[in-house]
């Protein structure tokens, strides 16, 4: 039987290698597939933490539904391999953003002993079953939950606005 530590290392490696390849592949289809791999790695991490529900939902929603949609759009638009040059500004900016995000995530972990302890399987949520998740989602975390759905709604309205065809009597 796999030990928890080995499983953790294997799945983290899958998630990280996948993520690194998403941003370095030039072919968009390959990048999308690496992202699927990364999601599967994260789902494996959830499973090793004993959160089977989250793991299954990760596969169903992210790897199974959202990425199929991504892939559909990539194939439909028939995107070609992107050229490496001409994006130097964007590349520098994204590098800075990556470092900032990393710092943002790493700092609390470096400062707080409690957070570091919480990341081990022994301290995982005692019962990550559907009932418990639902209870937390609709009581303690009701407000953040609603705010996140609102955020998604705003993003959706924005995307529809950007993508819609301009009306005939209206200039772009």
């Amino acid at each position, binding site marked *: 039987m796999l030990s928890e530590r080995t499983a953790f290392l294997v799945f983290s490696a899958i998630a990280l290698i996948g993520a690194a390849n998403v941003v370095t592949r030039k072919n968009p289809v390959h990048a999308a597939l690496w992202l699927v791999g990364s999601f599967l790695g994260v789902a494996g991490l959830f499973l090793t933490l004993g959160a089977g529900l989250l793991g299954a939902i990760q596969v169903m929603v992210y*790897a199974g539904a959202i990425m199929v949609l991504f892939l559909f759009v990539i194939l439909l638009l028939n995107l070609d391999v992107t050229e490496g040059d001409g994006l130097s500004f964007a590349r520098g900016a994204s590098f800075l953003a990556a470092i900032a995000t990393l710092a943002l995530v790493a700092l609390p972990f470096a400062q707080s002993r409690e957070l570091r302890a919480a990341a081990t399987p022994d301290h995982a949520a005692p019962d990550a079953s559907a009932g418990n998740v639902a209870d937390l989602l609709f009581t303690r975390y009701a407000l953040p939950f609603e705010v996140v759905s609102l955020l998604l709604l705003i993003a959706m309205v924005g995307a529809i606005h950007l993508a819609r065809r301009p009306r005939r009597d209206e200039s772009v």
Partner: protein
Amino acid sequence: MTMLATLLTATPLVATSLAATPLGGALLAATPPSDATAPLWLTLIKVFTVFGITMTLVPMLVLAERRVSAWMQYRVGPNRVGPGGSLQPLADLVKMLFKEELRPDGVPPFIFTAAPAIAAICALSMMAVVPFGGTLEVGGRSIPMVVADTDIGVLVVLALSSIGVYGITLGGWASNSKYSLLGGLRSSAQMISYELSLGISLLGVLVVSGNFESGSFRLSDVIEYQATTGIWNALRLPLGFVLFTIAAFAETNRLPFDLPEAEPELVGGYHTEYSSMRFGLFFLGEYAAMVAGSSVIVCLFLGGWHCPWLTTEVTVGWTGALLQMSVFLAKVLAFLFFFIHVRWTLPRLRYDQLMTLGWKWMLPLSLLNLLWAGAHAALGWF
């Protein structure tokens, strides 16, 4: 030489799908049930049983499809190889193994090879969470008759079916052919449209069977509920049963939803460029998905191994287990016959009809079904 190469590609793929099931089972056992985790040899026996039965059902199904279609169209069908044509699938397999393996120019080799394997592995692994019987009490041990007795059983089925789409989509994309690409595109659009209805009509079953109160998504719990109350969920949720069945047809790419491989317009759709055993794996995946889909429908709506005249007092020990397995198998076979019957009865939908049906009819109706299920559970009907 070619045959050797074919065997070399085919053998590890089949072996992987075999290995994927116990590995998946071992991983899923991270959330073990109340009793102690089953020993490895027991899991292996169960894996070989389920894998063996599924792999036996697939060629039987291929033959049945050809004979039933012939029968429905007033033809004879394949009847030359073996008594009554019973060895025809074997002949087909030999033909597939010996055929030349073609690969078009300019295809990405890894994805082109991996696509049929993904389709086949996902379909075969689904059987890991399907309970083919109740609990077998033998030798002081209570053995749940399912490969991976995990809390998230139904979700695993949904997750695997949504991953299985990649096999078809990528096969279409990697073939470097416009017909295949169109087939792959259609399949991904179709899956997204019907997965929602599939998931929501499934929620209705879980609400009615009280799964949310116990927080388990085990298929065996759904069957247990139907067995103790003696009423199958198809009677409680007739609308959900119909919706789930239609969505399952769409998810397995069966007619009237086989637009990804629509022969008249797309040659062969996503598998146009595939030949020999790689095509065989797509074929295997489709039929294994049919077996898995029927099994899940039987578990969710038709009582699984439960039979009105076989009460739990009768079904004890080995004979009981065998009886339950036979009941389950009989139901699955009956449903598979229905799958075949529908294929040779209904014409294919047009693409816009497919989307209209999925989004404008199935989705609202599945929400209605969820509402019905909620009322059912809250008011405590039968």
